[in-house]
């Protein structure tokens, strides 16, 4: 199984998990996303620095499904996250590297049925998001302050 690891594409991506829902914003495109259930699980595993096999293992602890099914879902989903610019693959880790994982919740939650992760994508506020984050409030420096860090121009 691939040992590829990923990093969240910060600072171009903002994200936070609220009530088991991962909400993600791509500041370069103005798209925003919601991940629930297994999708949020994959996201939190990626956030912890897990590789594919560790993500699959994390899901296997939580859901009842054949490992092959989990692996196919994870591979496909991680590809989708990359296509959307939310995460990027890191170079293959050295074998000597200790995977920075396995610190996740170990509660023996009862296994539930597995539903493949779904990336809910919202495009309706692109123009607002592209304009907004650079024009911000800073309580120390006064507001507003506008800044566009070196990032691609918004699409027309």
């Amino acid at each position: 199984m691939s040992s590829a690891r990923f990093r969240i594409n910060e600072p171009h991506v903002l994200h936070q998990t609220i009530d088991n829902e991962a909400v993600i914003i791509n500041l370069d495109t103005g798209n925003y996303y919601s991940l629930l259930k297994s999708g949020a699980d994959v996201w939190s595993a990626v956030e912890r620095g897990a590789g594919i096999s560790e993500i699959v293992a994390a899901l296997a602890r939580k859901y009842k499904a054949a490992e092959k099914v989990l692996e196919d879902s994870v591979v496909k989903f991680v590809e989708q996250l990359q296509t959307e610019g939310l995460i990027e693959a890191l170079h293959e880790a050295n074998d000597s590297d200790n995977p920075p994982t396995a610190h996740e919740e170990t509660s023996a939650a009862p296994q539930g049925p597995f539903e493949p992760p779904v990336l809910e994508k919202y495009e309706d506020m692109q123009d607002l998001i592209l304009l907004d984050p650079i024009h911000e409030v800073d309580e120390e420096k006064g507001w507003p302050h506008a800044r566009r860090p070196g990032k691609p121009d918004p699409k027309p």
Partner: protein
Amino acid sequence: METAALALISVIITVYNGARYLAAAIESVLAQTYQPVELVVVDDGSDDGSEKIAGGFLPALRHFYYPHEGMGGARNRAVALAEGSFLAFLDADDLFPSDRLERQMAKFTRDPALEVVYGHVREFVSPDLDEMSAKRLRAAAKRIRGRLPGAMLIRREAFLRVGLFDTTLKVGVGLDWAARASERQLRNVMVPEIVMERRLHSDNNALRQKESRNQYVQVLKSAIDRRRATRRT
């Protein structure tokens, strides 16, 4: 024959320690080809001389100074003070092109059923920046469709129907309001012209602070929740 009185537009500038570009913002409102315009400047407790700058334009504007509260609260105060039947918002570092209100009001004249008229935004790197700071900024090559408060001319009743600005947010105040406005599906049109010039000037980016980033995400999480609730009903 007496000509029908034109509708009063209230332009709202809120400022907190924005002395550097405030005069230019004020001048861009006073230079509007449309009249009558009431300019309401609410100072949110500045201590950098903003108060004196705005005061220097009296009596061409209405000037108010309050203890510091935050952008949402300051804008809400200004809305309460504004007497116009139409509202426009300008940040203290941005500029209105002089024909902006005239162009947007022409749309209302043609179609009185409209509730809000949006326009496009152009960004520019503030010319007073030194080379180093200017290099770090990049203005969008193209005009951007502006649905943010700074790009709209809106009927007062329509604004109040969407609701006031969120006073708990430090970031995403405009985004939050615009998201709520889009859910109300106001009768709107967007003019192709530039209605706001956005100045890029600071090397500061509030989104670097984790608390601010989280708050920004929460604004969108709320929008997602409202959408799901609407879909269910």
